[in-house]
């Protein structure tokens, strides 16, 4: 049986609201496709062999936990860079910032980030919070929630969501989220994969294709009804 290994990085710090649910959702979808899933929960000071894992997930944090993680993840820059384009890194909420070039704090400090993707980020002097609905040509509308202290800028990466409700990566435009074969980052946080079962299917399918494994498919009935109900009610 094929096995996929997921590393939930900084699970005990980057878990602003309900984010561990994303691992549950991925696991369920892979398992329904006859893939065995092994999940490891890793954090500060843990030994992490980045070669061992196929998928890395980082949830969102508040500024305090973001900075605690920063001090640790920046020490692993070389190791992450080595594997970055051969794996799938998923970052929801503020953890996207780690993957860009720099992060400028409100007091003017510019912190160097992992420098894996071509964008910078800036701390905002207000919290951006609210429901979000975005359209994407990859899947059905994506529903979610944002709760962030930053914006991206100088973005030279393709974005895949056009916000209909909610804020884009930069506030000034409605484009949001970066989706590459090896990276998915979005300001939508919380149980994103649970709430968007069709999007999760899309991601799982992509991962299986990379491994030349046939996608069997899995229809999550309750999650799909919840998703549809949300959209119906939102439009009312």
């Amino acid at each position, binding site marked *: 049986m094929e096995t996929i290994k997921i590393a939930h990085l900084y699970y*005990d*710090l980057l*878990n*602003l*609201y*309900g*984010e*561990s*649910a994303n691992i*549950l959702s991925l696991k*369920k979808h892979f398992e329904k496709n006859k893939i065995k899933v092994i999940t490891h929960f890793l954090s*500060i000071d843990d030994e992490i062999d980045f070669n061992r894992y196929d998928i890395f997930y980082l949830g969102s944090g*508040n*500024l*305090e*936990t973001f900075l*605690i993680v920063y*001090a640790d993840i920046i020490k692993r820059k070389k190791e992450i860079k080595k594997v970055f384009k051969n794996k799938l890194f998923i970052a929801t909420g503020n953890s996207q910032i780690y993957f860009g070039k720099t992060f400028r704090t409100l007091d003017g400090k510019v912190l160097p980030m992992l420098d894996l993707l071509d964008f910078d980020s800036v701390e905002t002097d207000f*919290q951006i*919070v*609210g*429901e979000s609905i975005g359209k994407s040509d990859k899947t059905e509308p994506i529903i979610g*929630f944002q*709760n962030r*202290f930053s914006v991206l800028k100088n973005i030279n990466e393709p974005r895949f969501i056009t916000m209909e409700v909610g804020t884009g990566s930069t506030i000034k435009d409605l484009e949001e989220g970066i989706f590459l074969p090896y990276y998915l980052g979005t300001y939508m*946080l*919380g*149980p994103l994969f*649970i*709430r968007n079962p069709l999007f999760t299917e899309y991601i799982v399918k992509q991962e299986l294709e990379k491994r030349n494994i046939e996608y069997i498919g899995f229809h*999550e009935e*309750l*999650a799909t*009804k*919840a998703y549809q*109900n*949300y959209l119906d*009610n939102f439009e009312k």
Partner: protein
Amino acid sequence: MILLVINMIMMFQIIVNKFITFICKLFKRNGTVFPGSISYNINQKILGKIRYPKYVIAVTGSSGKGTATNLIAHTLKDHGYDVCYNESDSNGIRAITTLILNNCTIFGKFKHDILLMEIDEKHLHLAFTKNRMSHLVLTNITRDQPVRNGSIDLVYNSIFDTLDKQTTLVINADDPGLKKCEKDHLGTIITYGLARTKDSYIKSDVKHIDYVYCPICRRKLNYSFYHYGHFGNYFCKYCDFGRGNVNYEGTDINLEHKVMKIENHEVKLNEDFLYVAYANVAAYALLKTIGVKEEQIVESFNKPINFKRTIEYNLDNRKFMFLESKNENNLSYYQSLKFITKKEEEKTIVLGFENVSRRYKSNDLSWLWDIEFELLNQNNITDIVCIGKFKYDLANRLDYARIPKKKIHVLEENENLSTYLKNHTTGTIYAMLDFEMTINLQKDLRGENNGNN
């Protein structure tokens, strides 16, 4: 001249507040928020103009503030103190404005010896600038209402921006997120907490807790035990931060018998929730700090107290218990679930909400995934009925918690809940619903809805 105009505006606001409250009462409307909304909007600095008494006591935090406030008020009234407090659950800036202005002379002098307020943690800074509060009781800060609060660090900053050294803090030291205020607050700090109980955990019973790392040196915290969530006895191996000894500790806690001890006095608990034990020791700490004699406190605590988180009804000779449940606050919701699971009889649970919050329209559902619904995997829970606009989200969460599908029922909009419960479920019924649903269902159970709910 400017001063005269300012005073005239203040008098006008007070008169408007009193007049609208009178009209509300005349038409039997709930006048706890609306009068304050009008007067607050005339000049939002009005509460800074009032001449307050010596004791201005606020109680705030993510949960448990209402219970603690009621207990403090109950004790003070019981012993003849002249106390004014918000008896209704309304605790936002507009309700606080209504309360204060209604209890002032038109010249802005507060008329009672003690002002006691349960106040929303994000509205504290709107009500009070520095130098106003004599005492502030802080129950806890946990993840709660993300739409409004953002995150716990923002709530903390919002509270502490309001304080200066003249305010005596009474804090729950079992919460490391509050204990860290020792480095921020220059005034007196009184601490309280609960000793280990037979139900304490070595490992947290909740997966998603807010303080795993030391808030001072940012290294991993150690716990000798947890009560629930991140509340417990913690210490940092790398710096001197820790819960340590507290000024007031609840000991010998026995929830089954609803008793505990504070300073060796046995006190009764109103209900068998651990948060009630926290409220008791918080109230005790505050009352003793302001000079109420411990014998008086204990005497009042042991009298029947008329506020509860649970209400009982009857459906077809089956007990039907409503539990107040706070959406968006995983620890509060978890306490209610835990309460249910401790009951040994056969039971049915009803879960539902039409809106996540009564305060705003945003419906974030992240919090559902921070709650351990896995607790409900019990043989004596026979059915769980999901209702309301988010019934499928709830059912999906239960499914992920590996609750057997045959136990999960999703009630469609055209089905009557009481009829469904009678025909399809067994055992005692526990309902955790939002405010409107609770009111509507209670009417139904009293036969006031003529079968429509």
